[in-house]
């Protein structure tokens, strides 16, 4: 690379209670480089981040900024050395303006402590201009889209002029087009000479935005590569020990044309979706693609009885149906795996077993009293089938890793023995291993005859699992694509078509 490195980590090691979570990790980050960091959950990514940002201090090893040794013992040290960080969860005050959020640490005040609003807005405008961001500084953050909020979050970290900016899963709440805008900002940041550490589970993002990528596995560096020199299969293989050959693999079509289990006819909800018609076959995985605001989520909610529709009809087993509540849908063998496991899916403070039995209380009881033995049988069955790694049936879900939480959520849905499963982003923000397992299970249950309507923010995932993909744009069915015609580029294009035309 020739030029001298901006930042160097040398032999960084960290243990907790004799358990080494980061083992002799060394790397260099160049000036103006976007440095990717990938690995499964527990590989050491977050420990490494926390060492660089001063949340933890390393047991062994040194860090350098150029020639100068960086002694980082706490968060303040890290800030002073020029490390900026944006964590996964957004931390903005929605009731305040863009400018007030960006300068939350150092408000422009007069000597008497009075807020100087004009100066604040001027400084914010300057920053927004510098990175070509078209957002007004006096706009209230609550009115911004998630994508713009993420951008403001990053600008907030740039206020201290960090030499090294760490972005931890910055796209987890963003849609496809918003991710592109975020990348524009990152490129802008790189152009200004800042270096970025970019952490993501979305490997396609790693390829798109990073210059080099470091792969961690079990706390050790497995390799540092030029991002362009790897294929996605190679990268995945480096991250996990076993080869997951079917990660993006093909599969046979699983359904027979005549086995229509569910049909939607001209379903319309004004301003959300209109004239949606499609058929779902027994054992089919039907993907729904669309950008945020395309109506795909509203459609699924309406079909499940949690959202509304104005007109149109639903045929289920050939009979006309309308669900007014979620319990009706569930009673009819339709189950919904919501997109956010923490807020809509799980009872975090409750145990693994109580989460799994939520939908099947009747099945685990006799004469309306719950039976412990029945619970244990069901829970054991699913802990094995879905391979949930928990200490016991009674461990609280909040203590599980994201991947295992998602598996609990999936078990909860499967325990109802559904005919139809709505799966909304079933692998959101989880590690590659768990993801592969969830893919395996979805394929398996489809093989057993369960029909699945799948939404995923990752087009590759949608293509890997689906038999057909319906592309929605602006609330309408854009096209229905059969498996043999799947092409990531075409699908993306189709998702954006209407927006591009206008």
């Amino acid at each position: 690379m020739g030029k001298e490195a901006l930042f160097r980590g040398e032999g960084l090691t960290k243990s907790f209670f004799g358990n080494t979570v980061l083992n002799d990790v060394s790397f260099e980050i160049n000036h103006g480089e976007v440095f990717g960091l990938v690995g499964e959950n527990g590989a050491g990514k977050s420990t490494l981040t926390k060492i660089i940002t001063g949340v933890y201090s390393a047991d062994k090893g040194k860090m350098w900024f150029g020639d100068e040794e960086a002694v980082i013992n706490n968060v303040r040290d890290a800030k002073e050395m020029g490390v900026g960080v944006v964590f996964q969860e957004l931390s903005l005050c929605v009731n305040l303006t863009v400018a007030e959020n960006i300068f939350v640490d150092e408000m422009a005040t007069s000597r008497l402590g009075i807020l100087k609003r004009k100066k604040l807005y001027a400084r914010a405008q300057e920053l927004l201009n510098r990175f070509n961001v078209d957002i007004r500084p006096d706009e209230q953050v609550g009115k911004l889209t998630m994508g713009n909020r993420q951008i403001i979050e990053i600008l907030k970290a740039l206020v201290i002029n960090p030499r090294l900016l760490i972005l931890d899963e910055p796209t987890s709440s963003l849609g496809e087009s918003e991710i592109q805008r975020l990348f524009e900002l990152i490129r802008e940041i790189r152009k200004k000479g800042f270096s970025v550490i970019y952490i993501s589970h979305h490997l396609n993002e790693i390829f798109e935005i990073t210059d080099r990528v470091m792969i961690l596995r079990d706390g050790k560096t497995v390799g540092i590569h030029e991002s362009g020199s790897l294929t996605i299969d190679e990268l995945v293989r480096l991250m996990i020990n076993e080869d997951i050959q079917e990660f993006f693999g093909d599969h046979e079509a699983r359904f027979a044309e005549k086995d229509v289990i569910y049909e939607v006819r001209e379903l319309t909800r004004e301003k959300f979706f209109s004239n949606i018609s499609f058929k779902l076959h027994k054992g089919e995985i039907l993907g729904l693609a669309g950008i945020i605001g395309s109506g795909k989520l509203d459609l699924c909610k309406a079909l499940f009885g949690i959202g509304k529709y104005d007109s149109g009809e639903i045929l289920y087993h050939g009979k006309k149906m309308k669900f007014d509540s979620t319990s009706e849908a569930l009673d009819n063998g339709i189950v919904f795996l919501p997109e956010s496991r923490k807020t809509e899916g799980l009872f975090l403070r409750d145990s693994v077993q109580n989460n799994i039995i939520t939908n099947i209380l009747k099945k685990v009881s006799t004469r309306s009293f719950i039976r412990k033995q029945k619970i244990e049988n069901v829970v054991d069955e699913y802990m094995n089938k879905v391979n949930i790694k928990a200490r016991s049936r009674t461990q609280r879900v909040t203590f599980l890793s994201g991947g295992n939480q998602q598996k609990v959520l999936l078990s909860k849905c499967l325990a109802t023995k559904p005919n139809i499963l709505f799966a909304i982003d079933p692998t959101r923000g989880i590690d590659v291993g768990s993801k592969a397992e969830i893919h395996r299970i979805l394929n398996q249950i489809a093989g057993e005859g369960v029909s699945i309507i799948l939404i995923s923010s990752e087009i590759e995932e949608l293509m890997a699992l689906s038999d057909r993909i319906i592309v929605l744009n602006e609330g309408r069915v854009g096209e229905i694509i059969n498996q043999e015609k799947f092409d990531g580029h075409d699908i993306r294009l189709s998702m954006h078509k209407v927006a591009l035309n206008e």
Partner: protein
Amino acid sequence: MKEKAVTNRSLKNIFSSQESTIFLVIIAGGIALTFISPYFLNKDNLLAILMAASFESIVAIGMTLLLISGGFDLSVGSVFAFSGVVTGVLLANGLGPFWAVIIGLVAGGGVGYINGIIISKVKVNPLITTLAMMSIIRGIVFVMTRGLGVSNLPDTFNVIGQTKILGVQTPIIIMVILIVIFGLLFKYSVFFRQYFYIGGNEDAALYSGIKVDRLKIIAYVTAGMTAGLAGILTAARMGGALSTAGTGLELRVITACIIGGCSLAGGEGTMWGSFLGVILMVLVANAFNLTGVSPYWQRAIYGFILLAAVLFDAVRRRRMEE
């Protein structure tokens, strides 16, 4: 990771021992009081403690259910007086005790129904709704009784509260029966299990097909009816319904439930724990009487206990979320 497993286990011990802890505190307090006062450990005093606890324990049934579901009800004190007064007025006008009691209970349940509708359907928060209801109902009680009460209730009614069976007063017996029934139902029945899910995560409960709104309304109706029942029993016990009955009751009952393991965040609580909480509160009052400390201190002490219980609850939850 290892560290997590360790903290998890020690935390778990704290949870499972929440009820045993308070049980031990009660035993220790009892032993201390036995030494301090010669009047503590005799049958009459112990029955008096249970008697005092019986009304609040009955109110605690509904409150526990609400706290488990993530709600609470500040209007129980007013409803307590309201049901008593409604029953009293009907009796004074010559209605038979059976129907007077039934209508009194329905009146209490009706207030709960209104609370439930406003909270679940209109989505006003429980604090504001039940605070307003507390004031409205108390006002109605004052209007109905011109600020006084209904006295000289007929003996055919008073018998409900003044009879002894095997030397034990009826309110105690009613309380024990209800606590046992609801205790078992809360713990083992499918129906009440759903409240733990609602309190744990309302959105997730909705996606799981639980009829959240309907169940919440039922919980508020239960709270209204149990408060009403306690109020009616009190009226029968005293032979009259006071307009000021149940003042401050909501504070004492919520405190008792939280000491007993309910969480203001919802999703936790047992009938047995709440009952022990009530016993502890009554024991504190009894200690004041026996030791001759000014009863004016009682309200302050109750406030302290509530604050301590809530702080403990908050710390416990924070440690769990770490």
